[in-house]
């Protein structure tokens, strides 16, 4: 089965708080390691990938910023993307429009326009012939897309615009974007979930809606933050017995340790059930990522997750 690295664009989506940006960044690192010139494009305007690499100066905002060998990031700014587009499409007149406050008001009032512009930028990054004169082509664009509900709406935006506009540059742009995003040879949608009820449900709904509303098959599902079951059922029973028999004089640390080890087992078991439910709903096993027992996911953490994601590429 061909891996994700054969594509030109990876859309990473998932419910808020599941680690979507983390997985997008880790996929980017893994692809760059394999020798692909890769850019992680954030559509959510949070500059998180650059921050994980210690770049909190906003240098990746609306500009392509190199983070490591073959690895780049950009936090897409719709306004900026628009200016690029106008200069290219309408030349001097485009310049007039892009300098006009009225025109900007028009665009920001148009529903879905921000989404279209963000996607347009992601699409442009994935072209072998870049629009901008100094733009070198990328092998892979990893898109940190908006959260699930909005993610589907976002992906549908180009088609909607193409249908409404019928003819003209926006219609053409909409059609080109839609053709790329719905072509499984070029684009893969990757869902990120946690092994909890809500994220699992949303992932299953996402799969259905992608198929029926856009004709897109979900390429991969990544379950993030799985706690290990270090005890396993047999040891867990012994720990449970030991907890019940614990004498009054036992040291608090020993009691707390038994309790926390047992809790880990319970949580891991509950997570396994959710992973199983997800696998049943998907018809295949999702890819698993371990929980990182670190204060924040920093570069070292991302590198570790990139190791784990390697097989998907």
């Amino acid at each position, binding site marked *: 089965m061909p891996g994700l690295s054969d594509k030109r664009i990876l859309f990473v989506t998932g*419910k*808020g*708080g599941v680690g979507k940006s983390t997985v997008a960044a880790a996929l980017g690192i893994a692809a760059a390691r394999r020798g692909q010139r890769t850019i992680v494009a954030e559509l*959510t*305007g*949070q500059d998180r990938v650059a921050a994980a690499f210690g770049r909190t100066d906003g240098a990746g905002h609306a500009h392509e910023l190199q983070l490591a060998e073959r690895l780049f990031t950009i936090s897409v700014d719709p306004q900026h993307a628009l200016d690029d587009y*106008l200069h290219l499409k*309408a030349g001097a*007149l485009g310049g*007039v*429009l892009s*300098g*006009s406050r*009225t*025109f900007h*008001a028009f665009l920001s*009032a*148009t*529903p*879905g326009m921000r*989404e279209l512009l963000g996607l347009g930028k992601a699409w442009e990054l994935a072209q072998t012939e870049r629009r901008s004169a100094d733009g070198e082509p990328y092998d892979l664009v990893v898109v940190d897309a908006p*959260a699930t509900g*909005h993610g589907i709406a976002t992906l549908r*935006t180009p088609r*909607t615009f193409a249908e*409404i*506009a*019928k*003819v*003209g*540059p*926006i*219609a053409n742009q909409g059609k080109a974007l839609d053709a790329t995003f719905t072509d499984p040879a070029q684009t893969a949608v990757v869902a990120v979930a946690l092994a*909890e*009820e*809500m994220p699992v449900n949303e992932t299953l709904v996402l799969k259905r809606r992608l198929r029926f509303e856009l004709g897109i098959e979900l390429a991969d599902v990544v379950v993030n933050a799985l706690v290990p079951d270090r*005890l396993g059922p047999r*040891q867990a029973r*012994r*720990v449970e017995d*030991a907890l019940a028999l*614990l004498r009054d004089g*036992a*040291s*608090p*640390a*020993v009691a*707390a340790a*038994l*309790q*926390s*080890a047992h*809790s880990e087992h*319970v*949580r891991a078991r*509950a997570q396994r059930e959710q992973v199983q439910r997800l696998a049943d709903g998907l018809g295949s096993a999702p890819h698993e990522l371990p929980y990182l*027992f*670190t*204060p*924040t996911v920093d570069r070292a953490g991302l590198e570790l997750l990139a190791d784990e994601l390697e097989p998907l590429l």
Partner: protein
Amino acid sequence: MAVETWLEGTRVCICGGSGGVGKTTTSAAVATAMAARGLTVCVVTIDPAQRLADALGLDALGNEPARVDAAAFAAAGRPLDGELWALQLDAKRTFDDLIERLSPDERTREEILSNRIYRELSGAVAGSQEFTAIAKLHDLAASGRFDLLVLDTPPSRNALDFLDAPDRLTQFFEGRALQALLRPGNVGMRLLGRPAGMAMSVLKRLTGVDLLTDLSSFFRLLGGLLDGFRARAEQVEALLHDPGTRFLLVTSPEREPVDEAIYFHRKLKAARMGFGGAIVNRVHADQLGDEPLDGLAARIVAETGLPGGVARNVAACFADEHALALRDRENVAHLRERLGSDVPLVLVPHLDDDVHDAAGLLRIAGFLFDG
């Protein structure tokens, strides 16, 4: 006591915070506890987990409050002296209802509801979900049916979207600049700094005529609803600022949600919104105290008789859990420091399982209300 004192004199309680921090559960638990104390409470939620929705008897199709069966709470040991109601918000439908009510006549209403831009894209307007949530809240508050309303806010990328929503939606409805632009040969055209026909032709070339026509009628139609909408937005704004309205911040002890909570609190303060306090969910407690971690496995063997292999596993689990407890302690301290000493904080421990039934809600309510 904690949350109960925060809510003294409160008629509307809005739970805000970033995605995935447990806002829905917290809102439901707050509503449950207040219903247990004799109030008639309605919790308005956006997207509850199915099992929680089942526990609350929520019906996604209703878009109207439904009474929650109190028997499960009585069975779980805490009968509700008041009434608990719940509503699962349907944003699209609330928006449609609003258009319906504001439309001057049947024809305008039909034209808007069938306009393709409205139908296909209005859900994508930033802030529309937030706005409809408070608009619904406003209706429920005006109905006078409830002593307390608890709102679980939409999972915005930025909790702040919520506060700006009325403003941004008004601007959007006004679409003044756009209407000006679309009337040929008027001031708007001259604003472009080029002869009108020329700018218009550029715009047409860029957008396509059909899109421009649809957009133009979209904004023309909405423009007709403007006065009604503006009055509506003002009422909603007034509700947000009402002394009986209070925000509760909900966060997890991880760094990003904590930073988001700090930011949100600053904005609430700047906007002079009523504020109750902050709830930190899923906190890992530090149970180690002053004891050292070293030699823990040996002590486990000595005190429990468990085999060395099991004891080493237990010690390893605990070491990781302890690291999380230290992380949480640090982030909570950071939150406390940045919110200021006058802001009350309640910590809810990390539980082993999801909360999805009456007993679970009462358990969370216990942490929130009884410390």
